[in-house]
């Protein structure tokens, strides 16, 4: 508020004629802004996202109810003008994908900063988290750290397809996916699983690491776990080929 007023005063002192008052004001205002930082609008508390520590919200708790309502609205939004269940799941998947890409960076950032938070330790032990190069390392990363980052616990199972025809298929199981806690799909959409959103996150993480993948979420209810969900991870041919090369080269 103070800055524009100041600018007006300047323009009055500078501008001779009263008619050209307005353009002067704009000019001097612009000049002032560009002096501080060109084209940048800083929040009122002068803190940009770069001034906030990334670990600030690390142990913060999030309201489950507000997440449920937010996710509910996301499902409702995705449901507009969809042609069918597959289309809806595709849209949810697309909503999750960019989140996966971002989480990957955050996950690694946080795991590096914890290890170096033991400040006394020498720099040789920094950056212990390694980028996953092999499928198994990647899946363990998803099953453990990623799930903990998202849901506060590890996933319930990690399996490899037993069928020899599909060696590229892996299954991650969550007995009670957090996103589906409050969701009951209508009977005519019984195939729908809104954890397609989580499947999108997994896909984003895999793609970000350089593993081309298709991930889908499937209902596999049991007596004990009515909303048990299996995430089917299907790696692309290029990934499988590289996997063979890396195995021969002894890369872990």
């Amino acid at each position, binding site marked *: 508020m103070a800055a524009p007023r100041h600018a007006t005063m300047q323009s009055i002192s500078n501008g001779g004629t009263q008619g050209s008052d307005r353009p002067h004001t704009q000019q001097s205002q612009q000049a002032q802004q560009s002096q501080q930082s060109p084209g940048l609008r800083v929040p009122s508390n002068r803190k940009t996202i770069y001034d906030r520590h990334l670990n600030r919200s690390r142990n913060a708790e999030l309201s489950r109810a507000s997440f449920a309502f937010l996710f509910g609205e996301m*499902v*409702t939004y995705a449901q507009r003008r969809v042609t069918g269940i597959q289309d809806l799941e595709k849209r949810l998947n697309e909503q999750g994908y960019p989140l996966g890409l971002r989480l990957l960076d955050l996950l690694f950032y946080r795991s590096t900063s914890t290890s170096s938070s033991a400040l006394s330790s020498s720099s040789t032990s920094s950056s212990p988290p390694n980028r996953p190069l092999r499928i198994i390392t990647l899946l363990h990363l998803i099953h453990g750290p990623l799930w903990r980052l998202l849901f506060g616990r590890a996933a319930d199972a990690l399996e490899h397809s037993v069928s020899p025809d599909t060696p590229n298929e892996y299954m991650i199981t969550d007995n009670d996916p957090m996103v589906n806690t409050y969701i*009951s799909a209508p009977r005519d959409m019984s195939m729908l699983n809104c954890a397609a959103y989580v499947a999108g996150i997994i896909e984003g993480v895999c793609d970000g690491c350089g593993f081309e993948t298709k991930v889908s979420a499937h209902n596999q209810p049991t007596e004990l776990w009515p909303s048990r969900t299996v995430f089917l991870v299907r790696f692309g041919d290029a990934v499988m080929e590289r996997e063979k090369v890396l195995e021969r080269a002894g890369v872990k």
Partner: protein
Amino acid sequence: MPDKHRGVFSLIIINKAGGLIYQREFQAGLRKLSTNDYLVLAGTFHGVHAITRSITPKIPISQPAQPPATSSTGTAAPATSGYSYPNPGVPVSGLDHLETDKFRLTCFQTLTGTKFLLFTDPLTGSVDTIIQKIYELYADFVMKNPFYQIEMPVRCEAFDRHLGAWLRGRT
């Protein structure tokens, strides 16, 4: 108190327009009504509830303690505010419960006008706690479900499941 849940007979949820949106029995051997009769029951109860609310008696204000020098319009005020509900801060609730010697009907109305009718054994204690828990389950598994359309019949599998499980075993 193992008897607490056994005493719950059935539950009816009525939306704010008086339409039946949920009906479920928790005990075998109850007399069944036809769907139509349930709808009529819900509508009738809704009407009776509205009437009981509007006939809530007002009581005369005990002391017309208006300082006389406040304003010139003060003369009209005592005439209109001569009567008031006993507790003006609390909205008028209307029919709260209905008791026969075989069952007790408890009505709980939410802030948005949805009514929960719980039929219980007259001997069942702490009905309020049960209703509160049912309300909580409704808020969780019905209102947070993106596929539930407001004011429409409740068809949420998770709500049924959790409600049944809680009443059966208090998990």
